[in-house]
């Protein structure tokens, strides 16, 4: 950010910071670290050999691949959307901006299960477009397109929400200066705006991928849960749990957790470089 010139107030020599840090660490340990630890604890509770076997199960591998594929499609699309939305809202003034931002946030406030149902009502066999799709033998629900669409819905706000506040805070002076210098729209975006927002964009993309990889409720409605075919990794976790393979379920869950952790660490490292 742009507060480099002035450092925050000198830490006061009192107990307060230590107490606050302590409280923050304890609460985080209880709320976030404990569930994480438990997942790995259960996944490894029968040893590494069983863990390796659970992870390399063909159905689990297939679920990992499918989940990665979905994320690879969804994240770039949502990045483009996020940039476009942020550019429109932050760099221009038009009536209804508040409404537009709220609409972008709809997916936050809809239960993913309901999101899945929305898509069924639209593309399902009995849905609004159902007869048309059936006639043309187009398969959206219970196949890859349905899973991708619902994941797009659920993760739509993530990039926009990261990029928008930053673009708003940075104002439009730099871009306007570029305009007066005769730069084209694309040049302005690439040379001026993108360097300014790249860390927020990356952070949004990381969150978006993590969320896309982990989406469960909505996908469970439109996947059909066919073993080894339309099961994404979170669904595979549920499937293994219901197969009474609790250790296997936590093993699969641990891969998800690892993906999330790696993504967050990468983001964290990039941030250091970005600031330094």
């Amino acid at each position: 950010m742009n507060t480099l010139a002035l450092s925050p107030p000198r830490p006061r020599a009192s107990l307060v910071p230590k107490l606050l840090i302590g409280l923050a660490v304890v609460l985080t340990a209880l709320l976030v670290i404990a569930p994480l630890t438990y997942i790995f604890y259960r996944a490894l509770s029968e040893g590494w050999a069983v863990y390796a076997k659970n992870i390399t199960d063909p159905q689990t591998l297939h679920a990992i691949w499918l989940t990665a594929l979905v994320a690879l499609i969804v994240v770039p699309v949502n990045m483009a959307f996020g940039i476009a939305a942020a550019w429109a809202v932050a760099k221009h003034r038009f009536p209804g901006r508040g409404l537009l931002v709220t609409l972008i946030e709809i997916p936050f406030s809809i239960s993913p299960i309901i999101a899945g149902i929305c898509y069924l009502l639209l593309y399902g066999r009995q849905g609004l477009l159902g007869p048309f799709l059936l006639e043309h033998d187009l398969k959206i629900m219970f196949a890859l397109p349905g899973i991708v669409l619902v994941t797009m819905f659920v993760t739509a706000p993530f990039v926009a929400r990261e990029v928008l506040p930053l673009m708003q805070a940075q104002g439009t002076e730099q871009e306007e200066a570029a305009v007066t210098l005769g730069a084209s729209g694309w040049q302005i975006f690439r040379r001026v705006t993108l360097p300014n927002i790249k860390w927020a964009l990356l952070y949004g993309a990381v969150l978006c991928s993590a969320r896309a990889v982990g989406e469960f409720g909505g996908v469970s409605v439109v996947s059909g849960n066919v073993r080894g075919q339309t099961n994404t990794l979170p669904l595979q976790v549920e499937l293994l749990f219901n197969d009474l393979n609790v250790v296997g379920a936590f093993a699969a869950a641990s891969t998800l957790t690892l993906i999330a952790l790696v993504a967050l660490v990468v983001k964290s490292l990039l941030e250091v470089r970005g600031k330094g």
Partner: protein
Amino acid sequence: MTDVAAPIRRKRVLPGFTLSLGTTLLYLTLIILIPVLALVLKGAEIGPERFLRIITSPRTLAALKITVTAAAVATLFNALYGLLMAWVLVRYEFPGKRLLDALMDIPFALPTAVAGLALTALFSANGWFGSVLESAGISVVYTIWGIIIAMTFTSIPFVVRTVQPVLEDLDPTLEQAAVTLGARPWTIFTRIVFPAILPAFLAGSTIAFARSLGEFGAVVFIAGNKPNETEIASLLAFIRLEEYDYAGAAAIALVLLIMALTLLLISNLIQIWSARHREPR
């Protein structure tokens, strides 16, 4: 809205307005609005009379009350916890800070069902926390406390992540001036810092609340799902579906959606309003 004065103040000079707004609206319409419209149409199918009957039935009201209560408690907790985390992460330097920072995003990244499984295992009578709590006579799993914990976990990042950037951007000169004038730290916080972060704080809390209202995956594992006691509104919608009653499910989903959207709209207006008041600095 209140944008009447805008065109006078600043002419639209930057390019790409049509393209970016067009793309945004197209995507928004295709991916979000049309599917939601399908839901609204379905909910409208049953007519206002049955709609009212569904949403005012004692069971629905009880489920809504439980959902709102649990979401409110979870949000209250997250508001305080989020404020604490944002403060600690921005203002202090200590070993492990970066890790703590990264951990804040975990609840976004973890599938809700996995979170539900892990939390239930931790808090059930034979779990790490549950065994301690149980011996103190507190049961969490299958009570409203379970719902609150699940909602708390899934909405942890919202407050931290909205307050953090504002706190980072806060102009330190005011605080330094206050220190030289001999103001006590608490006075500085309540008079200078808190008013500045209040809009972001409110916005973050609102989204956390909205998210908690709709949470399903994590909650069904840890809640007892007993009617009138631990049955949340999303579960009720799910039950209607099991009865092949799409319209009934849509009605309940719409109530939740309208509540959440109203709150989000208010919070966004607050943010835009406050952004405008901060601008000429």
